[in-house]
Protein backbone atom coordinates (compact mmCIF):
# COMPACT_ATOMS: atom_id res chain seq x y z
CA UNK A 1 0.00 0.00 0.00
CA UNK A 2 1.36 3.45 -0.78
CA UNK A 3 1.34 6.39 1.64
CA UNK A 4 -1.83 7.93 0.27
CA UNK A 5 -3.76 4.66 0.37
CA UNK A 6 -2.78 4.09 3.99
CA UNK A 7 -3.80 7.64 4.92
CA UNK A 8 -7.21 7.10 3.29
CA UNK A 9 -7.59 3.83 5.16
CA UNK A 10 -6.84 5.56 8.49
CA UNK A 11 -9.30 8.37 7.71
CA UNK A 12 -12.01 5.81 6.91
CA UNK A 13 -11.25 3.89 10.09
CA UNK A 14 -11.71 7.04 12.19
CA UNK A 15 -15.04 7.78 10.47
CA UNK A 16 -16.47 4.89 12.46
CA UNK A 17 -16.07 6.81 15.70
CA UNK A 18 -18.90 9.03 16.80
CA UNK A 19 -17.06 11.30 19.20
CA UNK A 20 -13.61 12.43 20.32
CA UNK A 21 -13.58 10.08 23.27
CA UNK A 22 -13.96 7.02 21.05
CA UNK A 23 -11.19 8.33 18.78
CA UNK A 24 -8.85 8.78 21.70
CA UNK A 25 -9.78 5.39 23.11
CA UNK A 26 -8.75 3.87 19.79
CA UNK A 27 -5.53 5.91 19.78
CA UNK A 28 -4.74 4.67 23.30
CA UNK A 29 -5.35 1.11 22.13
CA UNK A 30 -2.96 1.63 19.22
CA UNK A 31 -0.40 3.19 21.58
CA UNK A 32 -0.58 0.23 23.92
CA UNK A 33 -0.08 -2.12 20.99
CA UNK A 34 2.99 -0.32 19.62
CA UNK A 35 5.90 -2.79 19.56
CA UNK A 36 8.48 -1.83 22.19
CA UNK A 37 11.51 0.04 20.91
CA UNK A 38 14.79 -1.83 20.84
CA UNK A 39 16.39 -0.76 24.14
CA UNK A 40 19.74 -0.28 22.37
CA UNK A 41 18.11 2.50 20.34
CA UNK A 42 16.74 4.30 23.41
CA UNK A 43 19.78 6.54 23.75
CA UNK A 44 20.16 10.21 24.71
CA UNK A 45 21.12 10.95 21.11
CA UNK A 46 17.89 9.48 19.81
CA UNK A 47 15.68 11.71 21.99
CA UNK A 48 13.99 14.37 19.88
CA UNK A 49 15.19 17.63 21.41
CA UNK A 50 12.86 20.25 22.83
CA UNK A 51 9.74 18.10 23.04
CA UNK A 52 7.42 18.42 26.00
CA UNK A 53 6.96 14.66 25.83
CA UNK A 54 10.12 12.54 25.75
CA UNK A 55 10.17 10.77 22.38
CA UNK A 56 12.88 8.56 20.86
CA UNK A 57 13.45 8.26 17.12
CA UNK A 58 15.52 5.74 15.22
CA UNK A 59 15.41 4.75 11.57
CA UNK A 60 17.20 2.26 9.34
CA UNK A 61 17.65 2.30 5.59
CA UNK A 62 17.41 -1.04 3.79
CA UNK A 63 17.23 -1.62 0.04
CA UNK A 64 16.11 1.93 -0.68
CA UNK A 65 13.39 2.01 1.97
CA UNK A 66 13.15 3.53 5.46
CA UNK A 67 12.06 1.59 8.56
CA UNK A 68 11.21 3.17 11.89
CA UNK A 69 11.63 2.39 15.55
CA UNK A 70 9.95 5.19 17.56
CA UNK A 71 8.73 5.39 21.15
CA UNK A 72 7.32 7.97 23.55
CA UNK A 73 6.31 8.21 27.20
CA UNK A 74 2.89 9.61 26.23
CA UNK A 75 0.27 7.04 25.29
CA UNK A 76 -1.44 9.51 22.95
CA UNK A 77 1.79 10.24 21.11
CA UNK A 78 2.43 6.49 20.98
CA UNK A 79 -0.95 6.09 19.28
CA UNK A 80 0.10 8.63 16.65
CA UNK A 81 3.46 6.89 16.30
CA UNK A 82 1.62 3.66 15.48
CA UNK A 83 -0.29 5.49 12.74
CA UNK A 84 2.86 7.17 11.38
CA UNK A 85 4.73 3.86 11.29
CA UNK A 86 1.81 2.20 9.54
CA UNK A 87 1.82 5.02 6.95
CA UNK A 88 5.53 5.53 6.41
CA UNK A 89 7.60 2.56 7.49
CA UNK A 90 8.92 0.63 4.46
CA UNK A 91 8.37 3.55 2.06
CA UNK A 92 10.94 5.27 -0.16
CA UNK A 93 12.67 8.30 1.40
CA UNK A 94 11.71 10.63 -1.45
CA UNK A 95 8.02 9.66 -1.01
CA UNK A 96 8.26 10.24 2.78
CA UNK A 97 9.97 13.58 2.27
CA UNK A 98 7.40 14.84 -0.23
CA UNK A 99 4.26 13.48 1.39
CA UNK A 100 1.57 15.64 2.95
CA UNK A 101 0.49 13.89 6.14
CA UNK A 102 -3.07 15.14 5.85
CA UNK A 103 -4.59 12.28 7.83
CA UNK A 104 -3.62 13.97 11.15
CA UNK A 105 -5.93 16.85 10.27
CA UNK A 106 -8.69 14.72 8.77
CA UNK A 107 -9.13 12.33 11.69
CA UNK A 108 -10.18 15.30 13.82
CA UNK A 109 -7.43 15.31 16.43
CA UNK A 110 -5.48 18.27 15.14
CA UNK A 111 -5.01 19.75 18.63
CA UNK A 112 -2.04 17.40 19.00
CA UNK A 113 -0.35 18.81 15.92
CA UNK A 114 0.36 22.51 16.19
CA UNK A 115 3.62 24.29 15.37
CA UNK A 116 4.32 24.96 19.05
CA UNK A 117 7.84 25.06 20.35
CA UNK A 118 7.41 21.90 22.38
CA UNK A 119 4.80 20.01 20.36
CA UNK A 120 6.10 16.47 20.18
CA UNK A 121 4.09 15.27 17.20
CA UNK A 122 5.05 18.35 15.18
CA UNK A 123 8.71 17.82 16.01
CA UNK A 124 8.46 14.10 15.28
CA UNK A 125 7.01 14.70 11.81
CA UNK A 126 9.72 17.30 11.12
CA UNK A 127 12.34 14.78 12.22
CA UNK A 128 10.87 12.08 9.96
CA UNK A 129 11.04 14.51 7.02
CA UNK A 130 14.60 15.69 7.68
CA UNK A 131 15.71 12.11 8.24
CA UNK A 132 14.15 11.07 4.91
CA UNK A 133 15.91 13.98 3.20
CA UNK A 134 19.27 12.60 4.39
CA UNK A 135 18.46 9.16 2.97
CA UNK A 136 17.42 10.72 -0.36
CA UNK A 137 21.02 11.68 -0.95
CA UNK A 138 22.35 8.17 -0.32
Amino acid at each position, binding site marked *: MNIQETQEEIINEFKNFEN*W*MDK*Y*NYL*IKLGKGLPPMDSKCKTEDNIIKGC*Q*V*KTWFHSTFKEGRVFYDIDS*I*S*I*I*IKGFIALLIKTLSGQKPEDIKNTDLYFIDRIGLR*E*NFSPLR*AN*SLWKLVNRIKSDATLYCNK
Partner: protein
Amino acid sequence: MDEIKNTNKMSTFDITKIRNDFPVLSQKIYGKPLIYFDNGATTQKPRVVIDIINKLHSEHNSNVHRGVHYLSDQMTQMYESARKKVQNYLNARVYQEIIFTKGVTDSINTVAYSFGEAYIKDNDEIIVSEMEHHSNIVPWQMMCKRKGAKLKVIPFDDKGGLLLDEYKKLINSKTKLVAVVHVSNSLGTINPVKEIVAIAHENNVPVLIDGAQAIQHGKIDVQDIDCDFYAFSGHKIYGPTGIGILYGKERWLQEMSPYQGGGDMIERVTFEHTTYDDLPFKFEAGTPNYIGAIGLGVALDYLTSIGLDNIKNYEKKLLEYGTTKLLALSGLKLYGTAENKICIFSFLLNNSHPYDVGVFLDRMGIAVRTGHHCTQPLWGHYKVEGSVRASLAFYNTLEEIDYFYEALKKIQKMFNE
Protein backbone atom coordinates in the same frame (compact mmCIF):
# COMPACT_ATOMS: atom_id res chain seq x y z
CA MET B 1 -19.45 22.94 50.15
CA ASP B 2 -22.86 24.46 50.97
CA GLU B 3 -21.36 26.26 53.89
CA ILE B 4 -18.69 27.77 51.67
CA LYS B 5 -21.27 28.81 49.11
CA ASN B 6 -23.41 30.45 51.79
CA THR B 7 -20.44 32.33 53.14
CA ASN B 8 -19.83 33.69 49.66
CA LYS B 9 -23.35 34.94 49.39
CA MET B 10 -23.03 36.70 52.71
CA SER B 11 -19.85 38.48 51.77
CA THR B 12 -19.54 41.41 49.38
CA PHE B 13 -17.68 39.13 46.97
CA ASP B 14 -20.15 38.61 44.12
CA ILE B 15 -18.69 35.85 41.94
CA THR B 16 -21.35 36.16 39.22
CA LYS B 17 -20.68 39.85 38.81
CA ILE B 18 -16.92 39.24 38.82
CA ARG B 19 -17.17 36.58 36.12
CA ASN B 20 -19.19 38.96 33.99
CA ASP B 21 -16.29 41.42 34.17
CA PHE B 22 -14.13 38.93 32.20
CA PRO B 23 -15.52 38.50 28.66
CA VAL B 24 -13.29 35.54 27.77
CA LEU B 25 -14.81 33.37 30.49
CA SER B 26 -18.22 33.16 28.82
CA GLN B 27 -17.02 31.27 25.76
CA LYS B 28 -17.28 27.59 24.97
CA ILE B 29 -14.42 25.27 24.04
CA TYR B 30 -15.36 22.16 22.02
CA GLY B 31 -18.95 23.01 22.91
CA LYS B 32 -18.28 23.01 26.65
CA PRO B 33 -18.09 26.03 28.97
CA LEU B 34 -14.48 27.17 29.32
CA ILE B 35 -12.90 26.41 32.67
CA TYR B 36 -9.75 28.49 32.77
CA PHE B 37 -7.32 26.93 35.23
CA ASP B 38 -4.12 28.26 33.63
CA ASN B 39 -3.86 31.50 35.56
CA GLY B 40 -0.27 30.79 36.55
CA ALA B 41 0.66 31.18 32.88
CA THR B 42 -1.43 34.30 32.38
CA THR B 43 -4.60 35.79 33.82
CA GLN B 44 -7.64 36.93 31.87
CA LYS B 45 -8.40 40.62 31.48
CA PRO B 46 -11.37 42.44 32.95
CA ARG B 47 -13.49 44.61 30.65
CA VAL B 48 -12.05 47.81 32.19
CA VAL B 49 -8.53 46.84 31.08
CA ILE B 50 -9.65 45.85 27.58
CA ASP B 51 -11.63 49.10 27.27
CA ILE B 52 -8.82 51.39 28.40
CA ILE B 53 -6.37 49.86 25.91
CA ASN B 54 -8.87 50.37 23.13
CA LYS B 55 -9.69 53.91 24.27
CA LEU B 56 -6.04 54.95 24.55
CA HIS B 57 -5.32 53.74 21.04
CA SER B 58 -8.51 55.28 19.66
CA GLU B 59 -8.47 58.67 21.36
CA HIS B 60 -5.24 59.50 23.15
CA ASN B 61 -2.25 57.89 21.47
CA SER B 62 0.92 59.91 21.60
CA ASN B 63 4.47 59.28 22.74
CA VAL B 64 5.31 60.17 26.34
CA HIS B 65 7.93 62.55 27.72
CA ARG B 66 8.50 64.01 24.24
CA GLY B 67 6.02 66.40 22.70
CA VAL B 68 4.87 69.79 23.88
CA HIS B 69 1.47 69.08 22.39
CA TYR B 70 -1.76 68.29 24.16
CA LEU B 71 -1.93 64.53 23.46
CA SER B 72 1.65 63.88 24.53
CA ASP B 73 1.17 65.83 27.72
CA GLN B 74 -2.04 63.93 28.47
CA MET B 75 -0.44 60.52 27.82
CA THR B 76 2.61 61.44 29.91
CA GLN B 77 0.37 62.38 32.81
CA MET B 78 -1.53 59.08 32.56
CA TYR B 79 1.73 57.11 32.31
CA GLU B 80 3.23 58.78 35.35
CA SER B 81 -0.04 58.41 37.20
CA ALA B 82 0.14 54.64 36.51
CA ARG B 83 3.60 54.64 38.08
CA LYS B 84 2.18 56.27 41.20
CA LYS B 85 -0.59 53.67 41.30
CA VAL B 86 2.06 50.92 41.30
CA GLN B 87 3.99 52.81 43.98
CA ASN B 88 0.87 52.92 46.18
CA TYR B 89 -0.02 49.31 45.42
CA LEU B 90 3.41 48.10 46.56
CA ASN B 91 3.72 50.77 49.26
CA ALA B 92 7.04 51.85 47.79
CA ARG B 93 8.58 54.87 49.49
CA VAL B 94 8.89 57.06 46.38
CA TYR B 95 7.80 56.80 42.74
CA GLN B 96 11.45 56.86 41.63
CA GLU B 97 11.70 53.29 42.90
CA ILE B 98 9.20 52.02 40.30
CA ILE B 99 10.71 51.07 36.92
CA PHE B 100 8.49 49.96 34.06
CA THR B 101 9.92 46.89 32.31
CA LYS B 102 8.64 44.25 29.87
CA GLY B 103 7.91 41.79 32.67
CA VAL B 104 9.57 39.82 35.46
CA THR B 105 12.19 38.31 33.15
CA ASP B 106 13.21 41.76 31.97
CA SER B 107 13.22 43.07 35.56
CA ILE B 108 15.48 40.27 36.80
CA ASN B 109 17.82 40.58 33.81
CA THR B 110 18.09 44.30 34.50
CA VAL B 111 19.22 43.66 38.08
CA ALA B 112 21.43 40.73 37.12
CA TYR B 113 23.25 42.93 34.64
CA SER B 114 23.34 46.28 36.42
CA PHE B 115 23.90 44.94 39.94
CA GLY B 116 26.40 42.43 38.58
CA GLU B 117 28.41 45.11 36.82
CA ALA B 118 28.43 47.32 39.90
CA TYR B 119 29.11 44.86 42.72
CA ILE B 120 30.05 41.33 41.63
CA LYS B 121 33.58 40.08 41.25
CA ASP B 122 35.48 36.80 40.99
CA ASN B 123 34.42 34.11 43.53
CA ASP B 124 31.45 36.09 44.87
CA GLU B 125 28.28 34.09 45.49
CA ILE B 126 24.62 34.55 44.59
CA ILE B 127 21.95 32.53 46.40
CA VAL B 128 18.80 31.30 44.67
CA SER B 129 16.46 28.47 45.65
CA GLU B 130 15.74 25.03 44.25
CA MET B 131 12.18 26.09 43.36
CA GLU B 132 13.04 29.06 41.13
CA HIS B 133 11.50 29.67 37.74
CA HIS B 134 14.16 29.58 35.02
CA SER B 135 13.79 33.38 34.86
CA ASN B 136 15.34 33.60 38.29
CA ILE B 137 18.14 31.15 37.52
CA VAL B 138 19.42 31.78 34.01
CA PRO B 139 20.08 35.56 34.32
CA TRP B 140 22.17 34.86 37.46
CA GLN B 141 24.04 32.02 35.75
CA MET B 142 24.84 34.36 32.86
CA MET B 143 26.03 37.01 35.30
CA CYS B 144 28.09 34.46 37.28
CA LYS B 145 29.74 33.32 34.07
CA ARG B 146 30.55 36.89 33.13
CA LYS B 147 31.95 37.84 36.51
CA GLY B 148 33.43 34.52 37.70
CA ALA B 149 30.91 34.24 40.53
CA LYS B 150 29.11 31.13 41.85
CA LEU B 151 25.46 30.19 42.27
CA LYS B 152 24.36 28.61 45.57
CA VAL B 153 21.02 26.90 46.00
CA ILE B 154 18.62 26.76 48.98
CA PRO B 155 16.97 23.30 48.98
CA PHE B 156 13.32 22.59 49.84
CA ASP B 157 11.59 19.72 51.61
CA ASP B 158 9.23 17.29 49.88
CA LYS B 159 6.18 19.31 50.85
CA GLY B 160 7.68 22.29 49.04
CA GLY B 161 8.91 24.38 51.97
CA LEU B 162 12.30 26.11 51.77
CA LEU B 163 14.85 24.83 54.30
CA LEU B 164 15.76 28.05 56.07
CA ASP B 165 18.45 26.40 58.21
CA GLU B 166 20.22 25.38 55.01
CA TYR B 167 19.77 28.92 53.72
CA LYS B 168 21.44 30.34 56.84
CA LYS B 169 24.38 28.00 56.30
CA LEU B 170 24.82 29.22 52.71
CA ILE B 171 25.22 32.88 53.62
CA ASN B 172 28.80 33.99 54.16
CA SER B 173 31.09 36.91 53.45
CA LYS B 174 31.20 36.02 49.73
CA THR B 175 27.39 36.26 49.35
CA LYS B 176 26.49 39.34 47.37
CA LEU B 177 22.81 38.84 46.64
CA VAL B 178 19.88 36.53 47.43
CA ALA B 179 17.25 36.05 44.69
CA VAL B 180 14.20 34.00 45.67
CA VAL B 181 10.70 33.44 44.44
CA HIS B 182 7.87 34.76 46.62
CA VAL B 183 5.38 32.11 45.47
CA SER B 184 6.39 28.97 43.57
CA ASN B 185 4.69 28.77 40.17
CA SER B 186 4.88 24.97 40.20
CA LEU B 187 4.05 24.15 43.82
CA GLY B 188 2.17 27.20 45.05
CA THR B 189 4.32 27.55 48.18
CA ILE B 190 4.31 31.04 49.70
CA ASN B 191 7.84 31.55 50.92
CA PRO B 192 8.56 33.47 54.14
CA VAL B 193 10.18 36.33 52.27
CA LYS B 194 10.20 38.72 55.22
CA GLU B 195 12.25 36.24 57.22
CA ILE B 196 14.50 35.48 54.22
CA VAL B 197 15.17 39.21 53.81
CA ALA B 198 15.84 39.70 57.55
CA ILE B 199 18.39 36.87 57.55
CA ALA B 200 20.14 38.31 54.50
CA HIS B 201 20.15 41.83 55.90
CA GLU B 202 21.75 40.63 59.15
CA ASN B 203 24.64 39.76 56.84
CA ASN B 204 24.37 42.99 54.82
CA VAL B 205 23.21 41.08 51.74
CA PRO B 206 20.48 42.58 49.53
CA VAL B 207 17.51 40.48 48.35
CA LEU B 208 15.55 40.33 45.11
CA ILE B 209 12.07 38.80 45.25
CA ASP B 210 10.44 37.32 42.15
CA GLY B 211 6.82 38.22 42.76
CA ALA B 212 5.38 36.85 39.49
CA GLN B 213 2.96 34.48 41.26
CA ALA B 214 2.46 36.46 44.46
CA ILE B 215 1.32 39.89 43.36
CA GLN B 216 -2.12 38.71 42.15
CA HIS B 217 -3.05 36.87 45.34
CA GLY B 218 -2.90 39.48 48.10
CA LYS B 219 -1.37 42.63 49.47
CA ILE B 220 2.36 43.14 48.86
CA ASP B 221 4.13 45.76 50.95
CA VAL B 222 7.73 46.15 49.85
CA GLN B 223 8.61 48.33 52.84
CA ASP B 224 7.23 45.74 55.24
CA ILE B 225 9.07 42.91 53.46
CA ASP B 226 12.07 45.24 53.32
CA CYS B 227 13.32 43.59 50.11
CA ASP B 228 15.81 45.47 47.97
CA PHE B 229 14.20 44.51 44.66
CA TYR B 230 10.76 43.16 43.80
CA ALA B 231 9.68 42.09 40.29
CA PHE B 232 6.30 41.29 38.77
CA SER B 233 4.50 41.11 35.41
CA GLY B 234 1.36 42.94 34.37
CA HIS B 235 -0.22 40.04 32.53
CA LYS B 236 -0.27 37.85 35.63
CA ILE B 237 -2.23 40.44 37.57
CA TYR B 238 -5.11 40.87 35.09
CA GLY B 239 -3.24 43.59 33.18
CA PRO B 240 -1.80 43.68 29.65
CA THR B 241 1.14 41.64 28.40
CA GLY B 242 4.50 43.26 27.72
CA ILE B 243 4.52 45.39 30.85
CA GLY B 244 6.18 44.62 34.15
CA ILE B 245 7.64 46.24 37.21
CA LEU B 246 10.99 46.40 38.84
CA TYR B 247 10.83 47.89 42.28
CA GLY B 248 14.25 48.75 43.66
CA LYS B 249 15.34 50.64 46.73
CA GLU B 250 16.45 54.07 45.63
CA ARG B 251 19.90 53.58 47.11
CA TRP B 252 20.66 50.64 44.79
CA LEU B 253 19.04 52.13 41.73
CA GLN B 254 21.03 55.34 42.16
CA GLU B 255 24.31 53.44 42.34
CA MET B 256 23.61 50.99 39.52
CA SER B 257 24.26 51.91 35.89
CA PRO B 258 21.55 51.32 33.31
CA TYR B 259 21.22 47.97 31.57
CA GLN B 260 20.24 49.45 28.21
CA GLY B 261 21.05 52.73 26.54
CA GLY B 262 18.93 54.77 24.16
CA GLY B 263 16.39 57.53 24.01
CA ASP B 264 14.45 58.78 27.02
CA MET B 265 17.06 57.71 29.59
CA ILE B 266 19.64 60.44 28.99
CA GLU B 267 20.32 63.86 30.36
CA ARG B 268 22.96 64.93 27.80
CA VAL B 269 24.59 63.09 24.90
CA THR B 270 27.75 64.04 23.04
CA PHE B 271 29.98 61.73 21.02
CA GLU B 272 32.48 61.85 23.85
CA HIS B 273 30.21 61.26 26.82
CA THR B 274 26.62 60.67 27.96
CA THR B 275 25.08 61.55 31.29
CA TYR B 276 21.97 59.68 32.39
CA ASP B 277 18.61 61.02 33.40
CA ASP B 278 17.34 60.75 36.97
CA LEU B 279 15.44 57.81 38.39
CA PRO B 280 13.27 56.13 37.28
CA PHE B 281 13.91 57.18 33.66
CA LYS B 282 17.54 56.08 33.74
CA PHE B 283 16.33 52.47 33.49
CA GLU B 284 13.65 53.05 30.83
CA ALA B 285 15.52 53.32 27.53
CA GLY B 286 13.45 53.86 24.40
CA THR B 287 9.74 54.49 24.04
CA PRO B 288 8.15 52.71 26.98
CA ASN B 289 5.04 50.55 26.79
CA TYR B 290 2.96 53.45 28.07
CA ILE B 291 -0.38 51.95 27.08
CA GLY B 292 0.53 48.71 28.85
CA ALA B 293 1.58 50.69 31.93
CA ILE B 294 -1.71 52.58 32.04
CA GLY B 295 -3.60 49.30 31.49
CA LEU B 296 -1.70 47.82 34.43
CA GLY B 297 -2.72 50.79 36.56
CA VAL B 298 -6.37 50.15 35.67
CA ALA B 299 -5.98 46.45 36.55
CA LEU B 300 -4.61 47.44 39.97
CA ASP B 301 -7.55 49.81 40.49
CA TYR B 302 -9.92 46.99 39.57
CA LEU B 303 -8.37 44.60 42.11
CA THR B 304 -8.40 47.27 44.78
CA SER B 305 -12.11 47.86 44.13
CA ILE B 306 -12.82 44.16 44.70
CA GLY B 307 -10.62 44.14 47.78
CA LEU B 308 -7.35 42.26 48.12
CA ASP B 309 -8.52 40.61 51.35
CA ASN B 310 -11.72 39.44 49.64
CA ILE B 311 -9.63 37.91 46.86
CA LYS B 312 -7.29 36.24 49.32
CA ASN B 313 -10.13 34.80 51.40
CA TYR B 314 -12.06 33.54 48.40
CA GLU B 315 -8.99 31.89 46.85
CA LYS B 316 -8.27 30.24 50.20
CA LYS B 317 -11.71 28.61 50.04
CA LEU B 318 -10.99 27.41 46.50
CA LEU B 319 -7.68 25.96 47.70
CA GLU B 320 -9.19 24.14 50.69
CA TYR B 321 -12.10 22.79 48.70
CA GLY B 322 -9.95 21.74 45.73
CA THR B 323 -7.31 20.09 47.92
CA THR B 324 -9.91 17.99 49.75
CA LYS B 325 -11.50 16.96 46.46
CA LEU B 326 -8.30 16.06 44.65
CA LEU B 327 -6.84 14.15 47.58
CA ALA B 328 -9.95 11.98 47.50
CA LEU B 329 -8.92 10.72 44.05
CA SER B 330 -6.87 7.58 44.55
CA GLY B 331 -3.93 7.52 42.17
CA LEU B 332 -3.53 11.30 42.18
CA LYS B 333 -0.23 12.53 43.58
CA LEU B 334 -0.24 16.17 44.59
CA TYR B 335 3.05 18.10 44.50
CA GLY B 336 3.31 21.14 46.74
CA THR B 337 1.56 20.59 50.04
CA ALA B 338 3.19 23.35 52.10
CA GLU B 339 0.94 24.81 54.77
CA ASN B 340 1.17 28.29 53.33
CA LYS B 341 0.32 28.14 49.64
CA ILE B 342 -1.80 29.71 46.91
CA CYS B 343 -4.47 27.94 44.89
CA ILE B 344 -2.26 25.82 42.63
CA PHE B 345 -2.79 22.10 42.16
CA SER B 346 0.24 20.44 40.64
CA PHE B 347 -0.21 16.71 40.22
CA LEU B 348 0.33 13.46 38.39
CA LEU B 349 -2.53 11.07 37.73
CA ASN B 350 -1.61 7.40 38.14
CA ASN B 351 1.05 6.63 35.55
CA SER B 352 -0.39 8.93 32.91
CA HIS B 353 1.86 11.45 31.24
CA PRO B 354 0.85 15.07 32.02
CA TYR B 355 0.48 15.73 28.28
CA ASP B 356 -2.11 12.97 27.92
CA VAL B 357 -4.12 14.29 30.88
CA GLY B 358 -3.85 17.86 29.53
CA VAL B 359 -5.12 16.85 26.07
CA PHE B 360 -8.17 15.16 27.60
CA LEU B 361 -8.91 18.05 29.97
CA ASP B 362 -8.69 20.43 27.00
CA ARG B 363 -11.29 18.37 25.15
CA MET B 364 -13.51 18.72 28.20
CA GLY B 365 -13.14 22.51 28.10
CA ILE B 366 -10.59 22.74 30.92
CA ALA B 367 -7.40 24.74 30.31
CA VAL B 368 -4.41 23.63 32.39
CA ARG B 369 -0.68 23.67 31.86
CA THR B 370 1.38 20.51 31.51
CA GLY B 371 5.12 19.99 31.59
CA HIS B 372 7.91 21.42 33.70
CA HIS B 373 6.46 24.95 33.97
CA CYS B 374 9.96 26.43 33.46
CA THR B 375 11.18 24.92 36.74
CA GLN B 376 13.22 21.91 35.62
CA PRO B 377 15.49 21.86 38.72
CA LEU B 378 12.38 21.80 40.93
CA TRP B 379 11.11 18.65 39.22
CA GLY B 380 14.56 17.15 39.55
CA HIS B 381 13.92 17.23 43.31
CA TYR B 382 10.98 14.86 42.84
CA LYS B 383 12.69 12.86 40.08
CA VAL B 384 9.84 13.46 37.66
CA GLU B 385 9.76 15.57 34.52
CA GLY B 386 6.80 17.75 35.31
CA SER B 387 3.15 17.78 36.23
CA VAL B 388 -0.35 18.82 35.31
CA ARG B 389 -0.85 22.24 36.85
CA ALA B 390 -4.25 23.76 37.60
CA SER B 391 -3.73 27.33 38.80
CA LEU B 392 -6.86 29.10 39.93
CA ALA B 393 -7.88 32.74 40.19
CA PHE B 394 -10.63 34.60 42.03
CA TYR B 395 -13.01 34.23 39.07
CA ASN B 396 -12.94 30.44 39.33
CA THR B 397 -15.68 28.63 41.24
CA LEU B 398 -16.30 25.63 43.46
CA GLU B 399 -18.57 24.24 40.72
CA GLU B 400 -15.66 24.37 38.28
CA ILE B 401 -13.58 22.37 40.76
CA ASP B 402 -16.41 19.80 40.92
CA TYR B 403 -16.43 19.51 37.12
CA PHE B 404 -12.65 19.25 37.09
CA TYR B 405 -12.79 16.45 39.65
CA GLU B 406 -15.34 14.52 37.58
CA ALA B 407 -13.24 15.07 34.43
CA LEU B 408 -10.17 13.61 36.16
CA LYS B 409 -12.20 10.59 37.25
CA LYS B 410 -13.29 10.04 33.63
CA ILE B 411 -9.71 10.35 32.42
CA GLN B 412 -8.52 7.83 34.99
CA LYS B 413 -11.15 5.42 33.73
CA MET B 414 -10.16 5.92 30.08
CA PHE B 415 -6.48 5.30 30.69
CA ASN B 416 -7.04 2.31 32.93
CA GLU B 417 -9.53 0.49 30.73
